[in-house]
């Protein structure tokens, strides 16, 4: 069964093949469900001129924010950035190109990329700067804009549990962009908290079927909280 054993045992192996200039799709929302260690490995490797596709860009010193320190990101597609002083400076200085993309459109572009749908129409963004230069067409009496799919050279994903076949489940809202990101990578790498034996995951309850996954690695996670909010 070597053919379906997707486990790797070092982060170096997990990100083998990543090169400067590549497009990396990352799961996560804010700091929740982000592939912390895969990001750190990208930093360690020092690859540059990356195009990053991710809902957010981490914070100073954590998450995708660490890739800003050595200016590894050339361009980012995101819906919300700038929780992050370094990011703001690089954006204002024109060192990083930012393509702001509505959150739902971003998710759908990843889903479309994975699903072999090259483009779709959506009402989201019509009449706004997002719609500028895009084809407009009316459906059901309402204008829509054409949005194209996204795929990446790599997708980096944070799961909860996986089996060696690459079947993955996510925990709570750490799911977010991870399942769609996982479908859209030419090489999809998933880091998880626990690798379980095949058969332990209920086949009907798998969020990401193994067919989308190329490499699985078990890691340890800090899981930093961005806005700790409690009730009395």
């Amino acid at each position, binding site marked *: 069964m070597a053919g379906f054993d997707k486990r790797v045992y070092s982060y170096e192996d997990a990100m083998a093949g990543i090169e400067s200039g590549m497009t990396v799709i990352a799961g996560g*929302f*804010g*700091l*929740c*469900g982000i592939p912390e260690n895969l990001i750190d490995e990208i930093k360690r490797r020092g690859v540059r001129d990356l195009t990053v596709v991710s*809902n957010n860009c981490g914070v100073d010193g954590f998450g995708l924010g660490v890739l800003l320190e050595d200016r590894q990101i050339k361009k980012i597609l*995101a*819906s*919300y*950035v*700038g*929780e992050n002083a370094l990011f*703001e400076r690089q*954006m*204002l200085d024109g060192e990083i190109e930012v393509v*702001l993309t*509505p*959150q*739902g*459109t*971003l*998710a*759908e572009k*990843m*889903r479309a990329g994975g699903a072999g749908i090259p483009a779709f129409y*959506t*009402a*989201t*963004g*019509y*009449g*706004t*700067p*997002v719609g500028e230069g895009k084809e407009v067409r009316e459906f059901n009496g309402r*204008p829509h804009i054409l949005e194209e799919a996204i795929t990446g050279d790599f997708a980096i994903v944070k799961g*909860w549990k996986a089996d060696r076949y690459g079947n993955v489940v996510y*925990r*709570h*809202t*750490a*799911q*977010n*962009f*991870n*399942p*769609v990101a996982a479908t859209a990578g030419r090489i999809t790498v998933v880091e998880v908290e626990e690798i379980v034996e095949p058969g332990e995951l209920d086949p009907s309850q798998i*969020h990401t079927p193994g067919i989308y996954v190329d490499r699985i690695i078990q890691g340890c996670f800090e*899981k*930093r*909280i*961005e*806005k*700790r*909010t*409690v*009730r009395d």
Partner: protein
Amino acid sequence: MALTREQMAQRVARELQDGFYVNLGIGIPTLVANYVPEGMDVMLQSENGLLGMGRFPTEEEVDPDMINAGKQTVTARSGAAIFSSAESFAMIRGGHVDLTVLGAFEVDQQGNIASWMVPGKLIKGMGGAMDLVAGADNIIVTMTHASKHGESKLLSECTLPLTGAGCIKRVLTDLAYLEIEDGAFILKERAPGVSVEEIAEKTAGRLIVPDEVPEMTFE
């Protein structure tokens, strides 16, 4: 007197109906959850992938894997569902959310809304706002009627880059509740003690004032 933030939330809460799925934006919209009428149940959708958002957690319950769209730690209520961002925005874009409440910088008489970008200022992004306004039939915008400098936010035409075009039908400000119809704001209710004249003066867009403009009441 202008409504307080709490009163604004209270007024919006009167638009809730039992069984509504509701998406509440950051700020005043979030407060609406505190004023769900007794005996009524609404389900909160958080666009990061949570239907059935519960209260904030206790210290013991805090879980970094359980947050809302504002990135705050939250809990899930019994009967909640959690799903991917693609599924979450399928719900939103597909019009399955019954009511969306969100803030704005400007709204105009065509129902356009500007809420995400002030040129020259740092742009952080639209997040899910463009999807929300494009997907919901039923949106209530909450904002102050005028800026701190007294400039109206209810315009004949938005001056800032739009979040969505022709999608807003209802606006609650600190002075009034208005509906947008056929290219005009229709003054439906006014804040207690606020005169129609004051509202008219602070509304730059076309305003239609019916014969009766009831005053809101709060307990």
